[in-house]
């Protein structure tokens, strides 16, 4: 492969963003195919360890997206996600993880065009940042060292 094609994973909730992305399809709005969606019932279900796991397994960028504030199908799951995200962001930034690689957004079931926009801007940004090899290397080297110490 000559040009760098970012691998971007999207963690989305079933009720707003997943449906919004369906609407993007129904409206035939094109966006970058680098993004692959994993469906969750609610952003509240998203374990942020999954984000680290994704980076460790070669993801270059991540999108987390759910319902707008107050619109959560489960009343308050997105608030918990938001709260967790704020803590997580600070902590990860402090630990040296490139937070430019994560997009946190709200996309409703009626915002098909917005989903395409979120994806395209994220992919363009990750393309500029280049592959996120440093994290993967760091994690994998650490494991190797542990093994050799035994």
């Amino acid at each position: 492969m000559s040009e760098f094609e970012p691998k971007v994973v999207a963690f989305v909730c079933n009720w707003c963003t997943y449906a919004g992305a369906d609407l993007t399809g129904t409206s035939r709005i094109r966006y970058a195919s680098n993004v692959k969606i994993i469906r969750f019932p609610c952003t509240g279900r998203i374990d942020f360890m999954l984000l680290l796991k994704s980076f460790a397994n070669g993801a270059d960028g991540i999108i987390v997206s759910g319902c707008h504030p107050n619109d959560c199908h489960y009343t308050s799951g997105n608030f918990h996600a938001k709260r967790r995200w704020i803590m997580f962001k600070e902590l990860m930034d402090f630990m040296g993880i490139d937070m430019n690689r994560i997009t946190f957004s709200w996309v409703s079931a009626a915002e098909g065009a917005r989903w395409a926009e979120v994806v395209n801007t994220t992919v363009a940004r990750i393309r500029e940042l280049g592959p996120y090899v440093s994290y993967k290397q760091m994690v994998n080297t650490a494991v190797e060292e542990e093994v050799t110490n035994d």
Partner: protein
Amino acid sequence: MARIGVFVCHCGENISATVDCHKVAETVGKLKHVAFSTDYKYMCSDPGQTLIKEAIKEHNLTGIVVSACSPRMHEPTFRKAAAEAGLNPFLCEMANLREHCSWVHEKNDMTTDKAIDLVRTLVEKVKINSALQPIKVPVTKTALVIGGGIAGIQSALDIANTGHKVILVERSPSIGGHMSQLSETFPTLDCSQCILTPRMVEVAQHPNITLYTYAEVEGLDGFIGNFTVKIRKKSKSLDEKICTGCGLCTTKCPQKKIPNEFEEGLGFRPAIYVPFPQAVPNKPVIDREHCTYYIKGKCKVCEVVCPTKAIRFDQPDEVIEVQIGAIVIATGFDIKRADFFPEYGFGKYKDVIDGLQFERLASASGPTSGAILRPSDGQVPKNIVFVACAGSRDPAKGIAYCSKICCMYTAKHAMLYKHKVHEGKASIFYMDIRSAGKNYEEFVRRAIEEDYVNYIRGRVSTIYERDGKLIVKGVDTLLGGQPVEIVADMVVLATAGVANHGAEELAQRLHVSYDSHKFFAEAHPKLKPVETNTAGIFLAGACQNPKDIPDSVSQASGAAVKVAALFSQNELTREPLVAFVNRTAPPLYSTCVGCFLCQSVCPYQAIEREDFKTRDGKIIKTVAKINEGLCQGCGTCVALCRSKSIDLHGYTNNQMYTEVMALLNEY
């Protein structure tokens, strides 16, 4: 060992035009544990489903991945097919190759690779899916209808006539909605109130309908078949059981200069009032914001004159909780008001009015008893101009959509005017005439040919006053954009239909989706126009988008049938995608430490405490336990649990991590 079947659908050409379906099936077929893999033109068709069923039996499959459209579309179809072939329906997953891949990407290798990745990911997931049994829940056979306009009335009557109980909640003092304000209706020109009021009375008298006017929905809990709704019955300051509706209080009330909402501000009403003569219920309420007693602490004229002593100044609001099984939202629409049109002088010039105000002027029960008179000086306007698409179809103003009803009611307004002022001149500025509907086009032709209404194709740029006349400046695009100037006595703006005020808050309270214009969103634009994304909640009428009366009534009946179908069952089966706490044997060694952080985040109070006791009753450990009836499966508790003791069926930690690993790693 897992034996997975993969079924790749072409969806005619919808998927195969950009994704190489055959290659997807072939590549995935080589994966470990994939026992069968094929592609087919239409998986959802009868032969397609038969293909799946036969493959399940023939290859003894332990899980299937149907790679087709969105699971939001056909997951139930394929799960049912799997169940018919003897496979637990929850061992069927769907990869979304259409909405999330073929429809949004170009035809190239990357798109096909993405499709393969999506399928692969779900193959890995389905391997560790567990067979789940649906949960059975009872159905409370009472419906709630929110909004007492024509849509709400129709829905309530239809549901009530199937023999089920209905609670109808209306926030204003009377049911009737916008339809009760209209003078005549297109295309028949029959009197709106004459056809509506019998329905209103029927609602009030129906043994299966409980009517709460001057009431609002405050909150909603629960799920399909088992909702608990909180209704605030605002105080009417009146004992309705004693009040006879004689109306003496309304004539004696000293506060008489309150703009009348029903007359769209063209008339006045007292502080204790019945919105209009045919109101249902026909009993007054006190508007506490304007009542002298509530402002200054004295007056009480109404209490003095009331022959039955029904006035209750200290009556509090009442909040009631009711159990219901289904909801029909019929909260209707509103129209754009004054400040939106500074260029048309709306709100500045008294004789520039909106469509609803014109309805009141033309109505026999209106402030002018049906005479078309200028609001400024009470004179008969000799020259009247109607402006269609005032705000609608104007992306620059933020409203790109067509309000649908304005073309027709503008034609009707012009006709009504001509029927009342024979020598008058009526002109209509329009963008296009949209008159699709039974007898609609004929109606517009009648306005043009029989009533000589002057249709000018073009938009109005500005309206200003000169010597007591309104100067309407526009263009005639059929004359090549030639400027047109009309000196008018009165201008009627067909302002855009918009979501009713409070629609957004209500949507949030009910947890249903709404669009960027705050109209309620349907579950599918074509095939589920009556359902919302929330099971058990349905839509009727103009709360979804501007609609005329026949459309609203049809949809209301449609919603009623959906409710009746739901109520025809004694038990509902619910998807068992609920949380569970990992259990060990013996349970004492459970990893749950009983911190109950999960309890604090659960929106449904579905987490209970379970005690482990010794034989003599001493509690030795307390752990969390899920109430499956209450849990809705959001999974917020799962992400929060520090000891990873709680998990969610269908989206377990194991499944989600497996998906991530599969998606990102080479195969």
